[in-house]
């Protein structure tokens, strides 16, 4: 860690000393040149301008025909422009950027872009900047029209800036998500499906945004800006957006890093840090509102992220390349500390379990002490707390048990196949246990609500549909027993991974 900070410092220093030689990220230059030549971008820009022009003309003509003057003409024009701008920039730019990245990734077996001396981080950042510049292009093309609306009544400048800035940030976030989807190692049909899904998502998001923006404008955004709560809310949304975008950024960088690099470190570190900050923030919130049950927000968010992370982690390969092993610390204690942040399924499992255990313990501490400190506001009954505790604990333990089972099956039956099979197997097993009995009952003509609501040990979703504490406890016992069994079966594999986690030199001298 100290090494990386000092290297960052050194880099900053050299940046400052060589500011005169500073140049744009090469990717940005290349992408912008390509965008300028691309008929897609030119055509879209033309279309955009035409639509803007026609809309403003139509609105103005409509106005002059009408007898009584529309006092809100400025607002309605502005809204129309925002809708057009949002449509053009939120649909087109992420799509364009995503397709360009995907095209380069498809050719990646040949493409030398990814083996130049550009770092993966720089490549992703370059693509992101390019998207931002394109968004700026569209925004500035829209500017004259927007300025025009300002001449009319009903629109105040701060609101305009606020809405545009917000829209711009959303476009950048959408670009990052598009880049992430394009980097996923999937075949073309899947990527097309993803692109369609992404388009629908951004369509929906756009609708929401426009609705809330016009709602706010209707309420008088300018006057709202004076209140403190408005800024707190805006800041919260901004921070949450940044965190999510950052996660996608980190994941994209990891995806385009070569397999031999320590790809796991950045995402795991990032998630650990936001987990920590999120926990602290949540506690601050708990103290402010004096309601300890709010810690559930952080706990549930962590649980969801960890289950996704578990699916990824279980699909990691075991063997560490020379390149990764080169910077494993020799000191045993240090090695133990950094182990969760190195490639591999075993280390990943340690990381996920560590995070889950810390979250669980921390949440319990907050609930216990919070209950004594803020007894008047403590909104949770004892039974609710028990249910919450049982559900979260059982879910993660089940998830771990399923993942270990899948890994075991992969190791025993398909050792030559890629480890991604383990991730797929986990999902398959979970869904099989969840819907398998239902299907069997259906064919036996015995399917009823009762059978779905009843206790189904091993079914991860069943925990949330039963409310009987004794049944929940039995779920927990089964989960713990199963996890224990899986740990015992996988212990040899796990120890081997730990033993292999050695710096390069010492093992070389052993040979």
């Amino acid at each position, binding site marked *: 860690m100290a090494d990386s900070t000092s290297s960052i410092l050194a880099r900053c220093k050299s940046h400052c000393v060589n500011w005169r*030689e500073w*140049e744009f990220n*090469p990717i940005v*230059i*290349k992408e912008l*040149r*390509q*965008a300028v*030549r*691309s008929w897609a971008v030119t055509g879209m820009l033309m279309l955009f301008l035409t639509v803007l022009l026609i809309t403003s003309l139509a609105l103005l003509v409509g106005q002059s025909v009408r007898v009584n003057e529309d006092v809100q003409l400025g607002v309605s024009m502005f809204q129309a422009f925002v809708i057009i701008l949002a449509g053009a920039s939120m649909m087109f730019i992420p799509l364009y950027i995503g397709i360009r990245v995907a*095209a*380069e990734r498809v*050719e990646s077996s*040949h*493409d*030398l*872009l990814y*083996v*130049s*001396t*550009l770092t993966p981080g720089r490549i992703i950042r370059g693509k992101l900047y390019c998207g931002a510049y394109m968004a700026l292009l569209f925004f500035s093309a829209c500017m004259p029209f927007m300025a025009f609306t300002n001449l009319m009544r009903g629109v105040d400048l701060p609101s305009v800036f606020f809405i545009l800035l917000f829209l711009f940030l959303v476009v950048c976030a959408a670009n990052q998500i598009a880049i992430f989807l394009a980097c996923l190692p999937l075949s073309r049909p899947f990527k097309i499906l993803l692109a369609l899904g992404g388009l629908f998502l951004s369509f929906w998001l756009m609708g929401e945004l426009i609705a809330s923006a016009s709602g706010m404008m209707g309420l008088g955004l300018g006057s709202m800006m004076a209140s403190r709560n408005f800024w707190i809310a805006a800041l919260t949304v901004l921070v949450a957006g940044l965190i999510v975008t950052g996660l996608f950024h980190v994941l994209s960088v990891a995806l385009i890093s*070569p*397999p*031999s690099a320590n790809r796991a470190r950045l995402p795991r570190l990032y998630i650990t840090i936001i987990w920590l900050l999120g926990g602290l923030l949540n506690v601050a919130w708990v103290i402010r509102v004096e309601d300890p049950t709010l810690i559930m927000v952080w706990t549930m968010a962590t649980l969801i992220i960890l289950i996704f992370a578990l699916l990824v982690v279980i699909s990691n390969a075991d063997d560490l*390349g*020379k*390149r990764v092993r*080169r910077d494993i610390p020799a000191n045993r204690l240090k090695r133990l500390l950094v182990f969760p942040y190195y490639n591999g399924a075993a280390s990943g499992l340690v990381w996920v379990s560590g995070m889950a255990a810390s979250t669980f313990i921390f949440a319990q501490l907050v609930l216990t002490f919070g209950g004594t400190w803020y007894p008047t506001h403590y909104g949770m009954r004892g039974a609710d707390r028990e249910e919450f505790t049982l559900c979260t604990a059982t879910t993660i333990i089940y998830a771990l048990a399923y993942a270990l089972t899948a890994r075991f099956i992969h190791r025993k039956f398909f050792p*030559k196949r890629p480890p991604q099979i383990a991730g797929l197997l986990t999902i398959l097993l979970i869904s099989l246990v969840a819907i398998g009995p239902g299907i069997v009952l259906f064919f036996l003509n015995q399917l009823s609500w009762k059978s779905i609501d009843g206790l189904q040990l091993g079914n991860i979703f069943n925990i949330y549909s039963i409310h009987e504490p004794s049944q929940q406890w039995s779920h927990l016992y089964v989960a713990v027993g199963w996890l224990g069994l899986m740990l015992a079966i996988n212990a040899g594999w796990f120890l081997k991974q730990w033993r292999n986690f050695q710096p*390069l030199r010492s093992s070389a001298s052993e040979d």
Partner: protein
Amino acid sequence: MKVQVKNLRKEFGKTVAVDDISFSFDAGHIFGFVGPNGAGKTTTMRIISTIEEATQGDVLLNGISVCEEPELARRAVGYVPDTLPAHADITVHEYLDFYARAYGLRGKKRKQAVEAIEEFTNVAGIREKHLKALSKGMKQRVSLGRALVYDPDVLVLDEPAAGLDPRARVELRELLLLLAERKKAILISSHILTELTEICNGVVIIERGKILETGTIEDVIKKSKPRRIVAIRLLEGNYHQNPQLLKELLQTPFVENARDVANEIHFDLTGDESAACDILGGLIAKKYKIIEFRQTKANLEDIFMNVTKGGVQ
């Protein structure tokens, strides 16, 4: 600059594309890399160029390991793939300029480097053309230019002559010789073996991921001696002596597989040239009217045909 390939192995699932290959070559040398389709040439070259990662073994570029420090090794090696990726909406000049930037060339230096490379590879005339609109030969030049623009010490070319017209081939050969003069270590794979004979200092012949022959061209030719073929023709009208000659030859040392081929006797010589001399002397002493005694000179093509077995995995 010394390039050492050490016990390289690469598996794709169950296929072993490269199986324990070792060889090395130096600055100023052009090294030929020969093998039938699917032998593992491209795979080896991609590993040397840090594009692919080896399952086992290593490649050292002046001591820098491509497994351990690919970022560092990458600066030292320029790879010319057999096809140029088709980037949309970018011109030749912009493409070269991008790679110069990507490898950290700045300002004036970059401008000069790109222009020099455009001159050198003779693409200055087409620098404003779109990459997608280029012909095969032009693409090959741009690809070479791309690999040279950051002035690497090692150059790895994957079948650069494929699809070029004869003039372009000669030009390419001259370019390569010039680059070798500039102390670059060059590895070149090709199916057109006769071309390599003229410019290569050494060759490696591989098949199914395994090395069959390696060394300088002369070495390899010498090593393939057992397969050297000698043809004997008797004076016209003396063909009736052929069966007798065949029998005679079969008892002579260093002779194998003597056979009658259209009024000529061919045999595989397992010894060196002085052995051939002795055989000829012996035959003349026995009053055979020999009018022709010639050795078919082995070139890389023959060696290639002899050494490889044509197996495809």
